[in-house]
């Protein structure tokens, strides 16, 4: 398989995941580009018995984590997430669901970084707990705990703001 075919096959999923992590197009594109550069550089070391997508998602997650951490330090996460409305496909969602979705995104951006990563990988990408654990290189229990805290925090905030109810 040519490298171009590999990029074509996974570019959509990579961009989707990166964008779910960082929220805006520019950062997501940078992450995707750097991800495939790393894939190209380290492909010889990749163990073919393992899942390529897990490896790819791990690279994206690591890069996204760096971006989010940098933002967290600069206290800029809210501003960056604010522009994420532009790519929403409004036709596929009712106004209420869209509103709730945007509220969840906004709340999710305020979660601790590890919880953000688990939330995106498990609830938005619909990966299994085992896959999330492999990508983040943590235990499955740690995934469950982080996910529980993330969901609980978002849900409580949804209740408190009353936006959803």
């Amino acid at each position, binding site marked *: 398989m040519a490298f171009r075919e590999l990029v074509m096959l996974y570019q959509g999923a990579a961009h989707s995941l990166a964008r779910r992590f960082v929220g805006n197009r520019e950062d997501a594109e940078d992450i995707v*580009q750097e991800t*495939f550069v790393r894939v190209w550089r380290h492909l010889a070391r990749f163990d073919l018995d393992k899942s390529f997508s897990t490896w790819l998602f791990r690279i994206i997650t690591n890069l996204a984590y760096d971006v989010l951490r940098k933002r967290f330090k600069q206290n800029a996460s809210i501003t960056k997430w604010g522009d994420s409305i532009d790519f929403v496909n409004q036709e596929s969602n009712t106004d209420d*669901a869209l509103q709730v979705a945007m509220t969840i995104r906004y709340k999710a951006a305020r979660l601790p970084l590890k919880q953000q990563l688990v939330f995106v990988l498990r609830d938005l990408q619909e990966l299994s707990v085992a896959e999330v654990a492999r990508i983040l290189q943590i235990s499955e229990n740690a995934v469950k705990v982080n996910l529980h805290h993330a969901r609980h925090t978002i849900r409580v905030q949804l209740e408190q703001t009353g936006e959803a109810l």
Partner: protein
Amino acid sequence: MNCSEYQFLLENQGGMTPIETRELERHLAVCPDCRRVEQAINVYQQGIQAMRRITLSPTDENAVEAIVGAAKMTSRLRPVKQHLYLDQLGNMLTESVFRYAVAALLLLTLGLFGFQEVYTLHQLDRLSQTMVKRGQQVSVQTHYLWKAAQWERQIEQRWLTVSQNLTWTQVRSFFQKDQKAEPPLAWRFRFGNRLGTDEQQKFWRQLIR
């Protein structure tokens, strides 16, 4: 069950038994707090579903070209080959032949260290002998070993036929005469334990006197 347990069931509705489902329904009918939580969970799940349906990025041919170009234009391509060789080396080391070779190398190294240890002790022994000959300070035991050799030479010079190796009794006598004390018992094993002949004993007595 209390409210927190019902709320736990609400969060994990997929795994409920029919009995638990009925209990939960009965509880929800009478508990406004849990109803509010149920409603929040439903809203949360609807929101998540909506987020999942969002199309974020249709595959863009230009983006693909840009990524491929960036990957191939990067000056960091050369390490790929280097890593490949390292990986091949890593794979070779997992082969049993290489394991045996590594084990043999390890044994050889240990053997060399062992030989070096023995050789060092031998060298130390030679050194101590040289030092004794030069009159330098050495341990008491080494000193008497060397003196024993001198006494042996003295005996030979007097044309007395004695055993080539000094016996423990002889060494003990010399030590007692020289140091006015008993020699350490451990020395006993360093010398022969034969008793001399009457003639020899006579000689020792004269010598000691």
